């Protein structure tokens, strides 16, 4: 595979973040609304600026898919780092990245439905709003699966491709990504879906994680030694043939 395609896959992680946050601003998800808002206030929110909001929703949907090539290239790196004939951590990463796409898709559709009929009963719009916000903030497994798969992959690597601090960084990110997981228990305070810890801390670290991983993928593509995708051994061959 050409370096150009690999580099495109590497930057797609950064591109995801650079589309995600502007799209959230367009929709009005950033800064997040309070869960304490009444049904009428929520309906009022979704019935103003509908054109811009819907455009933002379309953009958010487009952004979500960018995680797939990015995660696939990470999975290849995990395979190259591993010693065994099979690469369970790489598969874990692939599952994580697939779920991460869904983690954006699912709330996007709920937000789309909320903005779709401004004239409807506010109670229904509020339910759709909750159905968007709760998975958007609570859904930690996709991110944690990826962070831990990468973290353990790097810390247990037999072929060093990435620096070890990146492994510790990923484990730390995995811990931060848990912050939103209890959002359903709170309607205000720092652990609510608009809270300092559940939203702001997790969002900042989430963005940072994509930028740092994109950068490290880019560096690994540019590195001269056997880092090209073709250096991963097919699973029906012994791993000892891996060029090292």
């Amino acid at each position: 595979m050409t370096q150009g395609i690999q580099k495109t896959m590497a930057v797609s992680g950064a591109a995801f973040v650079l589309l995600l946050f502007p799209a959230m601003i367009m929709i009005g998800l950033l800064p997040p609304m309070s869960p304490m808002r009444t049904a009428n206030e929520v309906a009022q929110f979704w019935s103003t600026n509908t054109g811009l909001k819907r455009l933002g929703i379309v953009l958010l949907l487009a952004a979500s898919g960018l995680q797939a090539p990015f995660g696939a290239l990470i999975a290849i790196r995990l395979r190259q780092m591993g010693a065994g004939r099979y690469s369970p951590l790489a598969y874990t990463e692939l599952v994580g990245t697939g779920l991460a796409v869904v983690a954006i898709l699912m709330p996007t559709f709920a937000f789309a439905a909320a903005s779709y009929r401004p004239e409807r009963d506010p109670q229904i719009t509020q339910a759709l709003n909750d159905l968007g916000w709760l998975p958007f903030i609570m859904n930690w497994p996709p991110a944690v699966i990826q962070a831990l798969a990468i973290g353990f992959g790097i810390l247990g690597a037999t072929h060093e491709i990435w620096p070890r601090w990146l492994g510790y960084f990923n484990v730390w990110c995995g811990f931060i990504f848990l912050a939103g997981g209890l959002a359903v228990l709170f309607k205000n305070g720092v652990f609510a879906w608009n809270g300092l810890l559940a939203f702001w801390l997790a969002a900042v670290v989430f963005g940072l994680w994509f930028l740092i991983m994109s950068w490290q993928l880019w560096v690994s593509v540019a590195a001269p030694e056997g880092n090209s995708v073709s250096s991963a051994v097919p699973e029906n061959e012994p791993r000892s043939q891996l060029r090292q």
Partner: protein
Amino acid sequence: MTLIRQSGAPGTSADPGRRVPGEEGIWVFVLGDMTVFALFFATFMYSRGKNHAVFARDHAELHVSLGTVNTVLLLSSSLLVVLAVQRVLGGRHAGAWQLIAGGLCCGAGFVAVKAVEWTQLFAARKGVGSGEFFSYYFMFTGIHLMHVLIGLAVLSRLIVVIRRAEFTDKQARLCETGGIFWHMVDLLWVVLFALFYLVR
């Protein structure tokens, strides 16, 4: 898990006065984690400043004695791990695993005391939803408890590593790294203890 040494990392014997303790990468985790906990403490103090009367009332419901026992347990545990790491770095790793096992028991004691304390609070109808003070208390001590459990897994791993026949600089460095994590868990608890149990 095979841990490889970075070629650029200074060896344990090369320049003992100047090298970074443990593996360099662990400090990314430790400093990151401590930054997040600093944010926790700041938000707690901010909310407390806004709602002083409620926080003071709920604070009276906590058992300071149980918190104190836990502080003593974790501090002793850290001391035992320090002694163990000292032995390991001094090349006398043979007797170190018993010290770490002692530290592990203290850590397990911490978990048991926490379980008793939480059971009592739950029985008194206090939960994560019982006001701001208790939501902070359960969330922060819960997140810390998760760190303790991970720490116990790390200490168990160190015992296994030390008891193995092969013991090189690499394993010594691993012990030091694990020790650093455990001391961080201890340090965070000391601040949590002061914040929740002592500050009036």
